[in-house]
């Protein structure tokens, strides 16, 4: 935990930053959850709500940026404090991106008409669960500052990549089966990509937290698990 400063207002300002980050994080988690629920249940009302909620995150990020700049200018922070403040700026940017990705999923609800096989939606739901678990655990670490537990992030990242690759293949198959599937499946493909990106942002946040607490960069050994760049399907023309 942080040591106490002579000027107690300084402590208050730092606390405000982390509290604001947590609130943004909670908001982003909720947005992604609701966006995926809207997609699976084809709930246009919920999708609209998610789209409108994004503005809260934009405001949050702006506020954190402003506060952080003011603290740097006024208090000339050193060491941990400086890392804390710079970290807050970075994390808020990542969370804001997560919100954008959630919003983008919500926007696509209108274009996916729900006639796709159930298994596809289940796959997207499972992918979203993995990504959200990742985000939740990372934000929990931000609250508890127990960076020794941060190793899980990479394992989870591999699972997300494997799941995404599998979904990618399945979507390609559906598109090849029937050209009418191409529009909804392309949208679903972007949804899956967005959700996979949420996992990546969570990993970024984990790295920032590691930096805030230890002052070191997290050892860089990220294996590339996303194999969709190698997925190809033999292009057989369906017989008429």
């Amino acid at each position, binding site marked *: 935990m942080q040591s106490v400063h002579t000027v107690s207002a300084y402590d208050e300002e730092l606390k405000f930053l982390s*509290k604001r980050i947590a*609130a943004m994080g*909670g*908001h982003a988690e909720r947005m992604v959850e609701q966006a995926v629920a809207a997609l699976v249940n084809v709930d246009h009302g919920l999708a609209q709500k998610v789209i409108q909620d994004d503005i809260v995150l934009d405001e949050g990020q702006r506020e954190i940026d402003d506060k952080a700049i003011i603290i740097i200018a006024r208090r000339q922070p050193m060491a941990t404090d400086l890392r804390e403040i710079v970290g807050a700026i970075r994390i808020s940017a990542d969370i804001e991106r997560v919100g954008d990705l959630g919003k983008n999923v919500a926007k696509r609800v209108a274009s996916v008409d729900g006639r796709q096989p159930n298994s596809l939606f289940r796959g997207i739901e499972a992918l979203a669960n993995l990504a959200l678990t990742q985000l939740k655990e990372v934000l929990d670490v931000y*609250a508890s500052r127990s960076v020794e537990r941060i190793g899980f992030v990479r394992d989870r990242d591999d699972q997300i990549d494997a799941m995404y690759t599998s979904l990618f293949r399945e979507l390609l198959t559906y598109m090849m089966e029937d050209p009418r599937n191409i529009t909804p499946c392309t949208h679903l493909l972007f949804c899956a990509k967005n959700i996979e990106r949420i996992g990546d942002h969570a990993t970024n946040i984990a790295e920032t937290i590691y930096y805030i607490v230890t002052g070191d960069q997290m050892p860089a050994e990220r294996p590339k698990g996303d194999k969709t760049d190698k997925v190809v399907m033999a292009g057989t023309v369906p017989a008429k």
Partner: protein
Amino acid sequence: MAETGAGQDSRGQALAARLRRNRWLLAAGVVAVIAVYSFAGASIYVLVPALALLAAAAMLPADAERRSTDTGAAIEASGLQRLSGEYLAAAVADPLIIFDHSAAMVHANAAAFAAFGGLAPGMSLALKFRAPEMQALLDGILSGGVAADAVDYTEKLPVERTYRVSASTVGHATGLYVLVFKDQSETRRIDRMRADFIANASHELRTPLASIAGFIETLRGPARNDPAARDQFLQIMQNQTGRMARLIDDLLSLSRLEMKPYLRPGTAVDLRQAIDSVIDSLGPLASENGIVIERDFIDGPVSVPGDRDELFQVFENLLENACKYGQSGGRVTVSMARVEDGQDPGIDVTIRDYGPGIAEEHIPRITERFYRVDVENSRTQKGTGLGLSIVKHILTRHNARLSIKSEVGKGAAFTVHLPAR
């Protein structure tokens, strides 16, 4: 009789107590009366009644006694005040967290630690409970706008839980606040289960039902007088009803498991005996499919904490799959190994077949409900698409892990890691 005696006894005691309590007053009265008698020279006839009056007054159940009962209650009340908040919190069965004006945790009871991992004194609750409604609840109570408030709070991961959370200030100006979580997951899940069951059942039961309906139509129409076709159709219909029955069984057992996903079973299970009986019960299926089941067990007794019937179902499903889908390999190996190293010691049970294997892209998803690698093959093997989903749920309940390794053309290995604790 004895009761009356006891009653008189206690009355006597009360009288004695009153006398004792009033002894100074009594003494003072006696002294005063005697003084008046000796100095003022009043007659003895005045003295005796005065003394008698004093004694009677002392013996009357005085106001003081009533007041002393009040004092007794006051002493008890201060006992309640002295009662430690920790003891009180520990006695509450629901998760309870006490926090201060900056939303930093002061104390949490055991139920709270069990329900929410990663709690520590001094930790900010605003950072831990990030959901917008919880933020609003904390802000509202800390700003002093409301003295008590409640919201519904849902945690989706790792297992879905719903709480009715009430927040309130503790006492007057103590600077402390309390959060109490009332678990409502069970009711929610029952509602959800009903909806899920209908959705799944209607989707998966439609196919066999449509086929039965079609055959009935044919039997009543074109095939009315064709005994050979009738027999064949009835056979198909029987198969389809069998499939529906299996499906309903599986859906029910899955729903039952989902109802209580985080209940940890307590008794010890003899793993060797459980697996042996699974192998015995699947003997007929194996020989029918031309499969030889090989065992490779470790020595000594092997027991893990768990629920025997559920673990039986896990190994039955896995071995049944191996016999059905790994048929071309001709053999299935069941091996058991003890894992000592690492932070997670336990028992690994591996069921390995030598069939066609599972392509890499399916592996992350085969534990999903109704996910089938090969729909046709699954249908002919009487699969419901729920077997591995059930396995996964049971293992989650046991804090266990399922890992799947497979290479196309070389078979598949399903490893269950059961923790030893």
